[in-house]
Each structure stands twice: as structure tokens, then as C-alpha cells.
């Protein structure tokens, strides 16, 4: 006998993500899901973003890593609330993990939560975490051909940070080819060229994000 199921495979995750999204909206907190490869400068970008926005907004960070708490320690050292999630081998965050972290935070007091997803350009793209926006970082040393290899993450991201632009001459990065490939995949996403460690371009990115937070 055939039984119609017609059920999303990720229904459990998606239902919980919808609950989280409602809680975020009720508390007027903007949630950013940050996607990138290992070593692309996620934590440096978060630190630079905190620096640019901390005068106007109350910020917390949720760090997703397979193991360790080194990233959360770096954030806490800046006087910012940070919760470490260890996924224990899982290659992406799921909404149940985010919920456990959120329950520790005082949502009412917060304006911005940055979710640092596990370093991976593939798996996190399929998982709704209740976020307001997914944003990805690509760093120059990774190469200008990445939109052709990992189209999914470029498509789900509302903005793209091109990090480590100060190293462009060394890595022979073709910025025009990169921008044209991104435009094919995601025509409306702005690209923010930036160097998180020397501060170049951080302001334009921070302004874009601030505008989104104010409207949350």
C-alpha cells in the first residue's frame, strides 16, 4: 500500500526555526547567520563588526565549531556575550543547537546576534536557523572561482563579504570574474570588499548591517 507523506525532510528543523524566528521578531533582535570556509576570517570579521557597531547596538555571538571554545574566548575578551556550541562532528548548525544557545542569552536586551556557523561552504546552506539573513565570507586566498564550485552558498546569502582584499596582488585574484560569477548566481546581493584585520571596507559592511538591524 502506498501512503502519501508529503512532508519536508527537514520539517523538525524548519518548525523549530520558525519558532525561533518568531521569538527573535518579538524581541526585535536581528540574527545574522555567517557562513564561510575555515580560515576565511570569520572570527576576525565578527570582531571588526562588533567594533564598528557596539556603540549603537547590544551584540551577542554564538560560535559553532566542531570542538573547542577558542573563538568564544576571543569574543568574550572584547566584553561581548558569547556562547560556544560544539557540534561534536556535525558539519553545520541546526536550529535545535541554536535554541539551546539562545535560551542562555537575554534576548530582550539584545539588538544583534551573530551566529558563526561551522566552517563549511556546503552543508549549512540547507538549514534554516530562524535567522534574518545569511551572509557569507569568501577570502581572497580561496580563489575567484569559488562561486562556480559552491553555487548554493552564494545563492542563499543576502550579502557577500570579500575578505583579505589586502592580499589580492599576491593571490592573482580576478575581482571582475568573481563579481560577474556572483551576479549570475545572486544578482541582488551586494559584495563588500574588506580587510577585517586592517579595517579597510569594514564601514560599508557595518552600515548595511546597521540599517537591517534598525528595521528588525
Amino acid at each position, binding site marked *: *500500500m502506498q501512503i502519501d507523506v*508529503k512532508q*519536508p525532510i527537514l520539517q523538525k528543523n524548519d518548525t523549530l526555526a520558525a519558532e525561533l524566528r518568531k521569538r527573535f521578531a518579538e524581541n526585535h533582535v536581528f540574527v545574522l547567520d555567517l557562513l564561510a570556509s575555515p580560515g576565511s576570517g570569520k572570527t576576525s570579521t565578527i570582531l571588526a563588526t562588533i567594533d564598528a557597531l557596539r556603540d549603537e547596538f547590544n551584540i551577542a555571538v554564538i560560535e559553532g565549531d566542531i570542538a573547542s571554545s577558542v573563538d568564544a574566548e576571543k569574543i568574550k575578551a572584547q566584553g561581548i556575550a558569547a556562547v560556544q556550541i560544539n557540534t561534536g562532528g556535525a558539519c553545520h548548525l541546526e536550529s535545535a543547537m541554536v535554541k539551546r544557545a539562545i535560551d542562555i542569552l537575554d534576548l530582550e536586551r539584545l539588538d544583534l546576534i551573530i551566529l558563526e556557523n561551522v566552517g563549511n561552504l556546503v552543508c549549512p*546552506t*540547507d538549514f534554516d536557523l530562524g535567522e534574518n539573513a545569511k551572509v557569507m565570507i569568501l577570502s581572497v586566498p580561496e580563489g575567484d572561482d569559488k562561486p562556480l564550485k559552491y*553555487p548554493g552558498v552564494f545563492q542563499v546569502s543576502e550579502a557577500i563579504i570579500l575578505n583579505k582584499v589586502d592580499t589580492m596582488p599576491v593571490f592573482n585574484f580576478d575581482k571582475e570574474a568573481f563579481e560577474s560569477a556572483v551576479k549570475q548566481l*545572486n*544578482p541582488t546581493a551586494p559584495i563588500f570588499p574588506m580587510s577585517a584585520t586592517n579595517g579597510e571596507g569594514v564601514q560599508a559592511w557595518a552600515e548595511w548591517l546597521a540599517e537591517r538591524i534598525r528595521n528588525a
Partner: protein
Amino acid sequence: MHELGIMTGVMEAATEAAHNAGAEKLLKISLSVGEMTEAIEDALVFAFEALKEGDPFTADADLDIKIIRPSSRCLECGAEYEHDRFHMLCPECGSFATELIAGRELQIDSIEVDLPDEANEQES
């Protein structure tokens, strides 16, 4: 490699639906998977084969995966068209303002099960 996690969810949902229908055995699971997702067919099949062994209820089940080609609608000229993973532009008017209408599916469509009374009928 998140297919194992995805497939674990599929097995749980399919097993639950089969039990709810009073089934004795799960025979088949049919899925729709959009090409725009990051779920790879081979990895889903591999995970399915590994997981089904763990329970006599699912051990003989087959997996059928329907791959859904991406398609979009142009928000400017209204054209609807199929495309690959990389080229979303409207082929009619060249507009960037398009909306994906298919290709991100991750769905359990249906299952096939053995019911006790069916088994009895076959035997008699």
C-alpha cells in the same frame, strides 16, 4: 556530508508514518530532491543503505529519489524557465529580478508499506 543527518530524519519520519498506518514492513521511500540543494544523490543512497540495515522493519526497503530541475519566474516579463544551478538570469529579457519556483525541494513524497491484512490475502 550532511546527508547522513538528512537521511536519519527521513528514516524516522517514514518509520513513524508506516507504524501509524499499522504496517508490518516498510517497502519503499520516495523523495523529491531539488538540484539547488546541497544534498547529493549518491551520498543519500549510501546513507540510506547504511541506516536501513539497523532495523528489520526497514531492512528490505528501496529508495526512490526524484531529482527536481531548477526553474524560475522572471519578475519583470513573467517568463517561466528551467535553468542549471549557475544561470538564473531571465533568458527572455535578461533581467536579474527572478524568483526560484522549483529546485530547493527536500521532501518525502510517499512511502510503500506491507499491511498485515494484505499479507493474509496473499497467503490465502
